[in-house]
């Protein structure tokens, strides 16, 4: 397998674009990524398009906007890991030697359609009658499992929201850029306990793109190529309750082991992680799944400040966090988590998310992340999980 580099990235500001269609959003991101790489569409040998709601042909419709060069198009759908799976297919195409330059693009237009809606005949719907299958419920129960195992409190999960909303104020591309102190997060209405409204990601529209090429060609386009040190995809292995309650942990742990082995690094080497905080509960679970802390230590880890920008709790939040600090806990990793504001604030247009997470890491590794820059970031990881279930991890190195 050949070494693969990222030479161009972009994402449009996530939000609502009722006056655009999704192919236009994606074409904007695609053309911006080409500009970032200093190349024209004619150089791109294949397109990998991630989109969940489009029935088929999402990639072709993007080329019908930004340049119909007749190249192969692969359309990808893989739950919330759709965009990152498209990226990995693009990575494999370069690594295998099939192509020298390809584009991965992720896009989604969700409009006002949320993750809460129910489908089908209401008389035969199970939702609310035989438990709940809504995402907030699934991730509420995943949080409940952590509470049961380790005595984690609702406030611990809420701290992830406080952090990510704080980070988002420095990200002009985030859908929401609004701070929320702990009492505000805790007092917002409960959606699915322990997740309150401010602990759930918003839905919206968005697009992001990346240009990948072989490492030997990368210097033709940029002085700052970013190496893809590992690109991993797993699905959910059999687990005891997994067919009843989706197990979001095991497949992430499996992916992490492969990613660290492949990249030849450990969690202590990571300067930052963009992880799949679709709900605040998920962020803490993934600290442990990715080895940023030991099992049962996620609550202490978020309260220690390790995952906050600058690896410390900002002065204005120290009072909020103080009751949850364990002075005997010393973090063993320093990865800042979700410097972008995370899905919780940046937004989660399903197919766009995976590529956007990768773009965010690239911005930091190049030193282009503005006020939210993770100082001196050299190694970053992008994590995405989609239910039923798919997990991607991409390790990016300066």
């Amino acid at each position, binding site marked *: 397998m050949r070494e693969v580099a990222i030479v161009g990235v972009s994402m449009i500001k996530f939000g609502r674009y009722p006056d655009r269609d999704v192919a236009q959003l994606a074409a904007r991101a695609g053309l911006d990524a080409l500009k970032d790489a200093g190349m024209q569409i004619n150089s791109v040998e294949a397109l990998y398009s991630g989109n969940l709601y489009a029935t088929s042909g999402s990639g072709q419709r993007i080329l019908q906007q930004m340049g119909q060069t007749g190249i192969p198009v692969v359309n990808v759908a893989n739950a919330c890991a759709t965009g990152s799976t498209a990226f990995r297919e693009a990575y494999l195409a370069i690594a295998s030697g099939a192509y020298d330059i390809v584009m991965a693009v992720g896009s989604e237009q969700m409009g006002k359609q949320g993750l809460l809606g129910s489908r089908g005949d209401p008389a*035969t719907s199970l939702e609310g009658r035989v*438990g709940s299958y809504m995402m907030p419920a699934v991730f*509420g129960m*995943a949080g*409940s499992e952590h509470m049961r195992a380790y005595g984690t409190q609702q406030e611990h999960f809420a701290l992830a929201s406080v952090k990510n909303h704080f980070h988002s104020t420095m990200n002009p591309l985030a859908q929401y850029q609004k701070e929320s102190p702990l009492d505000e997060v805790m007092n917002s209405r409960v959606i699915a306990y322990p997740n309150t409204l401010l602990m759930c990601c918003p839905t919206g529209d968005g697009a992001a793109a990346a240009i990948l090429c072989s490492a030997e060609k990368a210097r033709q386009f940029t002085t700052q190529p970013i190496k893809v040190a590992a690109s991993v995809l797993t699905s959910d292995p*059999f687990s005891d309750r997994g067919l009843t309650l989706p197990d979001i942990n095991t497949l992430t742990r499996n992916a992490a082991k492969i990613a660290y082995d492949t990249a030849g690094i450990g969690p202590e080497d990571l300067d930052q992680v963009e992880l799949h905080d679709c709900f605040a509960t998920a962020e803490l679970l993934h600290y442990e799944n990715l080895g940023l802390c030991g099992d049962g230590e996620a609550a202490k880890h978020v309260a220690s400040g390790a995952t906050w920008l600058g690896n410390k709790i900002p002065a204005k939040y120290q009072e909020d966090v103080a009751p949850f600090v364990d002075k005997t806990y010393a973090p063993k990793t320093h990865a800042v988590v979700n410097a972008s504001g995370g899905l919780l604030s940046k937004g989660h247009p399903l197919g766009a998310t995976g590529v956007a997470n990768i773009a965010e890491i690239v911005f930091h590794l190049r030193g282009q992340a503005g006020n939210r820059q993770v100082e001196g970031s050299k190694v970053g990881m992008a994590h995405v999980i989609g239910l039923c279930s798919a997990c991607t991890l991409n390790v990016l190195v300066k």
Partner: protein
Amino acid sequence: MAEAAAAAPEIRPLVPYLTLGETREQDYLNGSKCGNCGTMYVGPRLFCPKCSSDGPFESVRLSDHGEVYVYSVIHQATPYVKAPYIAAIVDLPEGVAVNTNIEGVEPDPKNIPFGMKVKMFTEKVSEDREGNSYIAYKFKPA
């Protein structure tokens, strides 16, 4: 006015793994056991995702009591289900877990200890346009 003879409304289980009896007291959850590896599943199965065999599967009557594994209090109403309510995963003694609602207790986390013993009951939860009734299973504190 002559009308086509309408089929008599039926009483139907909302999920295939609920077997209805003559009365609601006789309803029970059904499961299946992989004849190759012994893994238990909720409801009927043709194939085993654990050992990758095609069985054969033995049909098993599941217990009507279990323990709350985890839960969430859902405050998002649907057009036909009032919120808040408790959605939970209940472990049954046969080694399977089911999605369910917990009733008979206020939907407040302080009332729902992990491991709480619960007992199953069934009741009509909906009716379609043809007048067919749908029966769902739920659990309440034992």
